[in-house]
């Protein structure tokens, strides 16, 4: 009953293989650039990217621009998620509200957040709010529908149980039954928003708002592709951190599952 020999190797062995694989990939890449097959504006060397990465941290650019981007991201998510959860709850709870709002949202939802850029500029200018607005749109629709679906899908018999235990007010039922029961769906919505929002940050900044997205666009215009790639690494690393943190929080909140 011996399985795949690769899966049979020890944890240490696997780590060694993984590291070698990454190192090999980087080495091959470096070699290609070193051979002069590609001009640096088409493919910067990994060492050049690493140097630029360190430089950009040293000169304060990465912390500063990442700070801006995270601000856009956080503001947009807070607005989008809280409105989405709130409205999703209300729509799932009240038949009348559902009837009134559903067609409007169905009409607006297919418009991608970035299509709102012209209005974002007219309404908010080239500001943090404009970027936050675009990010909040995506987060809003995602959490709205996940909350709505989550609430619609809860075991409504639990509401009967709560009522026999003396819980009579709508607010009590929503707070003690509906929200916790729909929490897995709500959190899935928030996690999806985290990913979608991070993509929107980069795109939204490209219309002129200070942040990582604009920096990448500007660097690309100057053909400084090592800078572009250093910021791509920042985007990837930061998102990895955000997603990992959220999963940890999610697992804690849903450890009852």
């Amino acid at each position, binding site marked *: 009953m011996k399985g795949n020999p690769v899966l049979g190797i020890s944890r240490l062995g696997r780590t060694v293989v993984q590291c070698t694989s990454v190192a090999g990939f980087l080495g091959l890449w470096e070699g290609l650039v070193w051979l002069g097959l590609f001009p640096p504006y088409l493919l910067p060397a990994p060492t050049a990217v690493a140097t630029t990465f360190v430089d950009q941290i040293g000169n304060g650019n990465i912390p500063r621009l990442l700070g801006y981007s995270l601000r856009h991201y956080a503001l947009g998510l807070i607005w989008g998620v809280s409105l989405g959860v709130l409205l999703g709850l209300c729509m799932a709870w009240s038949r009348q509200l559902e009837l009134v709002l559903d067609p409007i949202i169905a009409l607006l939802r297919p418009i991608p957040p970035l299509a709102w850029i012209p209005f974002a500029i007219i309404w908010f200018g080239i500001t943090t709010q404009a970027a936050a607005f675009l990010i909040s749109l995506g987060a809003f629709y995602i959490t709205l529908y996940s909350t709505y679906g989550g609430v619609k899908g809860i075991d409504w018999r639990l509401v*009967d149980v*709560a009522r*026999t*235990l*003396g*819980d009579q007010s709508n607010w*009590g039922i929503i707070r003690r039954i509906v929200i916790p029961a729909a929490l897995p769906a709500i959190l899935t919505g928030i996690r999806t928003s985290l990913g979608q929002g991070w993509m929107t940050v980069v795109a939204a900044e490209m219309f002129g708002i200070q942040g990582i997205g604009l920096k990448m666009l500007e660097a690309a215009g100057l053909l400084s592709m090592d800078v572009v790639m250093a910021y791509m690494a920042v985007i990837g690393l930061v998102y990895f951190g955000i997603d990992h943190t959220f999963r940890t929080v999610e697992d804690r909140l849903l450890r*009852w599952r």
Partner: protein
Amino acid sequence: MRSTKLEVRELSKVFRTVEGREILALKDINLEVLDGELLCILGSSGCGKSTLLRIVAGLEQPSAGDVLINGRPLTGPGPDRGMVFQEHLLFPWRTVRQNVEYGLEVKGGPKTARAQECLSMVGLENSSEQYPKELSGGMKQRVGIARALANDPAILLMDEPFASVDAQTRSDLQAMLLTIWWGTRKTILFVTHSVEEAVYLADRVILMGSGSGHIIDTVSVDLPRPRYRVSPEFNDVRRDILKRLGFLTGE
């Protein structure tokens, strides 16, 4: 002389299907339950016994008739009636203790001591920090009973609570219920489709006809407790009930 705790008068319930058809679930139900009585409502599935219990709980409105508690008409669900459901229906996101604390939390005020007290009544004082997913079916039902008891309701409504556990666990739970009843002297309405369970538990058994939604008979069980399921007296009552339900016509 014991007073009447619960009275059901000329109660009817009509359900309307999506296509607009009317289904008569309960018809002209009259019932008096004495304070501290353990009353079983016995019938096969679809006889309306669960609907009756849900109406008494306040979760459904009757189409006609009244339900009186201590002589006062019922207005809705309330903490004076605790309910135990067939599929335990625990709140999965709450620990055992938090499930039991639910009613106390709604009422406000201290809760942990009372919750712990109820948990010891059902023998789960050591599982209070576990989540429902970690419990066996029988343990879940115990938590359901403790949760219903926490508010100290005068009436306990039990909707086939032991129908989906194995035989051994069921008899353990039945014995535990009798102990609790004995200790608290609560009025209990116990819905079941098992004749044996009804005879084992009840002071009085209400027989409901299958599909008709009305009471066909009432049987008092005057056997002393603890009852033995294999004793000839026990079997006499069983046979009597089965006969009245129309199952032993050939005899």
